[in-house]
């Protein structure tokens, strides 16, 4: 909002239009909610070349409760766009054909929390929840739950499992702060509750059974092979994340086909290595809850992988000078 761009018209030339924009290159928009209620009775005044992010900043100044990441604007519903067209931050309002006197629709996305904060808490939970069952086994299994020989030394499999589980979540937390670049700044706060319940519960329950005094380990060869495979997959997963973080240069929002390393063969190589990482862990520790956790994660990642594969195929059809996107596998070679 550079004031030097504006030309002030003296009052006597406004022809009695005291309620419209005073500056020549301003526009005033009406803001309504999705149910038709007026949100801003006085409308919102913006320079006609304002971007959507400017709109959100000014709206925030007028309604302090709604910070920019909580605001969502669309154009009014039409036959072609029954829910209106969503206004993207980087674009200018006039790119959507909005001019002085037009109406835009506001939606409150609810309290938002940053992606980094969500990831941090949802990964810190299982990391910490796992440990008491390993380090305070006599208290938990013995004193609290009354199992016999709760104080006996942990088995090799249990010790390795604890290190692997902890290392996995330490890696995830470090990636959150040093590797991942997020395309959205925030998510609704409900997601924080839901994600944390999922991770924290599974972390605790898996740990309860693996560190149990009556835990039955698998053969040593199987255990070592499982952990070795898991370690290889964890490192591959890290490499995949680094490749993904470097895909977009300079904050561009354009889609780029991930390539290099396993991405040449699998669309979602990052999910692939993650699932196989847990498979290795489960082969080594063999617990029903461990396998269940892996399957739940795999089911969710399957949905995401199918959507991503479809999106890339649509965006890169091989015509109009765009490369053709094609991969032998979507999520889990050699199966799918």
């Amino acid at each position, binding site marked *: 909002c550079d004031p030097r761009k504006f030309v002030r018209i003296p009052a006597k030339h406004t022809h009695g239009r005291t309620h419209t924009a005073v500056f020549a290159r301003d526009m005033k928009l009406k803001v*309504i909610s*999705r*149910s*038709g209620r007026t949100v801003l009775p006085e409308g919102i005044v913006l320079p006609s070349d304002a971007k959507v992010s400017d709109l959100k900043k000014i709206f925030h100044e007028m309604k302090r409760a709604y910070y920019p990441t909580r605001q969502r604007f669309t154009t*009014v*519903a*039409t036959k072609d766009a*029954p*829910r*209106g067209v969503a206004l993207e931050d980087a674009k200018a309002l006039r790119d959507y054909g909005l001019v002085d006197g037009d109406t835009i*629709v506001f939606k409150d996305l609810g309290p938002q929390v940053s992606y980094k904060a969500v990831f941090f808490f949802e990964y810190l939970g299982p990391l910490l929840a796992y440990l008491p069952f390993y380090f305070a086994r006599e208290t938990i299994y013995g004193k609290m739950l009354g199992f016999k020989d709760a104080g006996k030394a942990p088995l090799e499999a249990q010790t390795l499992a604890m290190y692997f589980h902890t290392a996995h979540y330490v890696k995830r937390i470090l990636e959150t702060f040093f590797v991942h670049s997020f395309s959205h700044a925030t998510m609704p706060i409900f997601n924080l509750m839901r994600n944390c319940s999922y991770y924290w519960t599974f972390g605790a329950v898996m740990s309860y*059974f*693996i560190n*149990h005094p*009556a*835990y*039955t380990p698998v053969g040593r060869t199987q255990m070592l092979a499982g952990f070795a495979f898991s370690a290889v997959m964890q490192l591959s997963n890290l490499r995949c994340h680094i490749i993904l973080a470097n895909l977009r240069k300079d904050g561009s929002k354009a889609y780029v086909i991930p390539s290099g390393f396993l991405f040449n063969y699998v669309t979602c190589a990052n999910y692939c290595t993650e699932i196989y990482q847990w498979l290795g862990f489960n082969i080594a*520790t*063999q*617990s*029903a*809850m461990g396998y269940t956790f892996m399957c739940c994660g795999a089911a969710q990642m399957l949905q995401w992988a199918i959507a991503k594969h479809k999106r890339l195929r649509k965006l890169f059809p091989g015509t109009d000078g765009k490369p053709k996107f094609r991969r032998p596998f979507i999520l889990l070679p050699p199966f799918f």
Partner: protein
Amino acid sequence: GYIVVTERRLGTTATTDMARRSMKERYLIAYNVIQACGWAYVLVHATQHAWEFHQQPTRARGGAQLQSSPYDIVRDFVVTFQVASFAEVAHSMLGITRSPVGAALMQWCGRTHVLMCALDAVGALHGTVAATTLVIAWALTEVVRYPSYALGLYSQCPLWLNWLRYTIFIPLYPLGAGAEMKLMYDARAFARKANMYSFSMPNAFNFAFDYVTFLNGLLIVYPFLFYSLYSYMFTQRKKKLGHVTSVKKQQ
């Protein structure tokens, strides 16, 4: 909703001639009609016997039963039609209907678990007030819900039936949920004695399940699930029995 509201018709096809309908519609209408009949039978027979049965002096009920409990009389029907309602989960999975799979699955699992594990498996609970309440509350709800679906598919759900559907839940949901919780609460003592559905470690898959702990967990979670379902029904009620129709239609 949005400003431009396309008026949602409660029916689907204009024709009432069954022969000209798609196979899917014919199947769905038949399914809903069959379910409606099953639950109507349950409602009639359960209510017929409920009053007499629960009027019996406790002394007589404690020993030999003077007559079968309402639950025992309708048990086969309730079990059959409740388990068969898994079809609704299948319908949403296959895309035949538009309801969300997760919600349908959770509903079915919740109800079927209470019916089969907490009630049917524990003979001593068959004659309780909670069992009778459960059966009658469920039957009353279904005897309104299934016909409203069938009529909606066939032509148009009559306004009075639609009103019933979005109003009787108000007393029936708490009654049903309360009965379910009471049954689970009482079932715990029997489950502990008979060690129902439980197994312990050590075993090859390093997993243990204690049914009583499971029931305790469910009892804690139930009020929250009930609250979200109940409030969802109220917002649906406002939408379907809407009182702002004139404003919406103008825009």
